[in-house]
């Protein structure tokens, strides 16, 4: 309907964005009437999100016309930003920023580099940055989930972990069940994405390719490729981050130091 009235694509986009924002706002107003105050957060988030995506879109347009060597720098910047966001979400975990940088760089960075070298991700700016950003963003989410979950698992199993240590177990052995639980939990979202692909949802990349009148078969296959890469990179990221956090949880003398009463001690 809107297409028939508005022919300028930018204006069409603005009108569509306004309608979508009004719809979201109406939902938050309804939520407010039920005692859930989300309106302020929703308005701020929508304004921030809209501003960011417009700025990024403009930068992206400029980048797509740039040389391919720009891509690694852009991706490195994305990894740093993702590590910072992830660390803020898992702020109760010790050394969360340092761990997040190493983990996301290892997981997302290595996956992108390897797949670009193999030709799975085309070595062009148009491919490296959008596909890379999806991999980095998902590594960020998985990393935050893994760090937060492992910290919570350790703090709620202090007795079991110290019992294992008291029986002569190494810190690795003592914490292993909780590390495995955190790893499993952090990989549920990317696994679910793969499991429900095409049935419950058609992800953004595929939708974009279809809207751009690309081949539906290639769009489907490539979406699977991206989701498989997301799972792989999230797996590496979380393995590294949980391992690094588990090292932080113990002292040189194999004492559990990630305990709430110790973190509250000056």
């Amino acid at each position: 309907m809107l297409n028939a009235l508005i022919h300028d694509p930018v204006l069409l986009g603005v009108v569509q964005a306004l309608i979508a924002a009004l719809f979201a706002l109406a939902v938050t107003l309804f939520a407010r009437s039920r005692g859930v105050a989300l309106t302020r957060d929703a308005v701020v988030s929508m304004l921030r999100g809209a501003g960011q995506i417009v700025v990024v879109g403009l930068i992206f347009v400029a980048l797509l016309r740039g040389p391919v060597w720009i891509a690694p720098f852009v991706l490195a910047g994305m990894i740093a930003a993702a590590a910072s966001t992830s660390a803020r979400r898992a702020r109760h975990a010790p050394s969360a920023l340092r761990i997040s940088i190493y983990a996301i760089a290892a997981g997302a960075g290595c996956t992108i580099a390897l797949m670009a070298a193999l030709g799975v991700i085309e070595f062009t700016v148009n491919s490296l940055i959008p596909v890379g950003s999806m991999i980095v963003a998902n590594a960020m989410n998985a990393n935050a989930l893994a760090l937060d979950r492992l910290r919570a698992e350790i703090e709620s199993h202090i007795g079991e972990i110290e019992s294992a240590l008291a029986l002569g177990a190494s810190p690795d052995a003592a914490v292993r069940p909780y590390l495995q639980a955190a790893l499993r939990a952090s990989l549920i979202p990317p696994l679910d994405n793969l499991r429900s692909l095409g049935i419950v949802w058609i992800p953004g990349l595929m939708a974009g390719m279809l809207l751009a009148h690309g081949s539906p078969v290639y769009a489907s296959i490539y979406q699977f490729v991206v989701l498989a890469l997301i799972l792989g990179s999230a797996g590496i990221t979380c393995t590294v981050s949980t391992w690094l956090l588990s090292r932080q949880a113990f002292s040189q003398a194999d004492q559990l130091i990630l305990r709430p009463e110790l973190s509250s001690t000056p």
Partner: protein
Amino acid sequence: MNNVVLQVERLSRTAGDRLILSDVSFSVNPAELLAVTGASGAGKSSLLRLINRLDEPCSGTVLLQGVDYRSLAPRELRRRIGMIMQRPYLFPGTVAANLQYGPAQRGKSLTPADVDKLLARVGLDGFAGRDISRLSGGEAQRVSFARALANGPEVLLLDEPTSALDEAATAQVESVISSAVRDRGLACVMVTHNPDQAVRLAHRALLLRAGRIEAIDTPERIRDAQRAYS
């Protein structure tokens, strides 16, 4: 002095500006049980954690058979100084798997006969294949006792091992403790809030007050001192 298995030398610990233990010294001989008594917050459990090196002392040290415990690898130290917590904290699985846990950390395993022997020692014959979810509180505590013995320790630390048990289960666990000290010649340090339990089991008792040793004497005298104080 040559006989001493465990020598605690001027152990102190503070957390922030809070004093937990100050200048605590004592020794324990083989086949001797030393009871540690005192009010809540006196530092009893903290003392056991320091001896097992689950926490680090700010000053002082522990000698195990005359060797400074900081020169021992923590895993080796904890194999030789077993610790039984207030709650048993058994690992999911069978009783036998729990008994195998300690030896497995050193790449060793117990034979089924070894497992049966340990279980017989704690009065749980035939429990090897039982899942830990089917154990009563007293049975679980005795399994945790057998699990600590499976490592062949020289010293045993007991942190109020009967505080969560009823009278009958307490009697069973006390009997297991007595026989382990007597038959295996273990040096044992047991935290208890119950002065009568100290009289029943201990050869000597130590009274802690606000992180400091108030007295080391016979369990009877320590019980009387505690009663006079309260």
